[in-house]
């Protein structure tokens, strides 16, 4: 075997060996080489000392409120995201005069549509009762099939034979 120390490309063999990740076959070959190569033996011993020293470096537990702080940041971001981008102090200069114009145009458009189509908003009131009944039956059957396959509402009978209690 060519000495791994001399061929840097093969030095990973020694690294893997030190970390106990080398396959059994390569391990046997390397250990046989180490019997005759003091440099490789020295590498192995030095690397093991290093691993042991690094093993002692334990990290401290994470703060108990880490998750809470993260979720708060996420929530803040979600709430301020679009507002902050569009209306915040840091919004691009080009938006500043364009925004009032765009807002005016939108309001005029919406107001115009609402004046012209008073009936559209009230459409749900005219829902067909037959359609509602069909939907209700479908929903009922879905729920009943779900409850037949997944009993979500009653506890199982205990070994003592007590009756099931419902939730």
């Amino acid at each position, binding site marked *: 075997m060519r000495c791994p120390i001399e061929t840097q490309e093969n030095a990973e063999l020694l690294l893997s060996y030190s970390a106990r990740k080398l396959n059994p076959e390569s391990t046997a070959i390397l250990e046989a080489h180490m019997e005759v190569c003091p440099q490789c033996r020295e590498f192995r011993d030095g690397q093991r000392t290093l691993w042991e020293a690094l093993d002692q470096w334990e990290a401290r537990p994470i703060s108990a409120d880490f998750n809470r702080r993260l979720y708060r940041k996420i929530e803040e971001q979600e709430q301020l995201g679009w507002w902050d981008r569009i209306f915040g102090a840091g919004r691009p200069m080009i938006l500043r*005069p364009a925004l*009032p*114009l765009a*807002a*005016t145009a939108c*309001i*005029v458009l*919406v*107001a115009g549509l*609402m*004046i012209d189509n*008073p009936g559209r*908003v*009230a459409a*749900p*009131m005219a*829902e067909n*009762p*037959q359609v*509602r*009944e*069909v939907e*209700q*039956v*479908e*929903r*009922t*059957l*879905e*729920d*009943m*099939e*779900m*409850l*037949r*396959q*997944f*009993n*979500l*509402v*009653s*506890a*199982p009978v205990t070994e003592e034979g007590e009756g*099931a209690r*419902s*939730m």
Partner: protein
Amino acid sequence: MYRSLYLSVVVLLGLAVSLLGQHSMGHAPPKGSAPAGTPGSGKNKQAIIDRWNRMSPEEQQKFLAKFPPDRRAKIAEQLNHFKNLPPEERSRPQTFSQLPPEKQNQARRAWAQFGKLPKDRQPLLRDEFENLRTMPEAQRNARINSDEFRNKYNANEQSILRDFSGVLSSK
């Protein structure tokens, strides 16, 4: 120039708000239908089953005619099946409807996802749920968070079982 633009925005905003206000006053919620998940809708469910049971064959045909043709046979089959269930099973929808709306919707979401699973996976999840159902809550949570559970079910399946188990939870 910009000052006049801002003023026009304010005026138009006021106009829009007043228009919105007029429309909302004439806006009543639809009557006659209990929103999904509210208490009382369980009685409607029970009423549907009971009504079907009391119908003559002709009335049943008339009732089924309201549904799309491809659904009629399945609906009849399901209604007849539920007619023959023991009382404690027939009362489940009513009990279910007494759960908080968010729990009912949680169960329905999980059910919708369950229906999309491959057919060979569905019995596994049913069995697992039945297993979870028999456990005390703490044991159930431990099971759901175990490596064995995570290795046995993919993320979607875990989510389904977690949602169903959440309905059983006392919280």
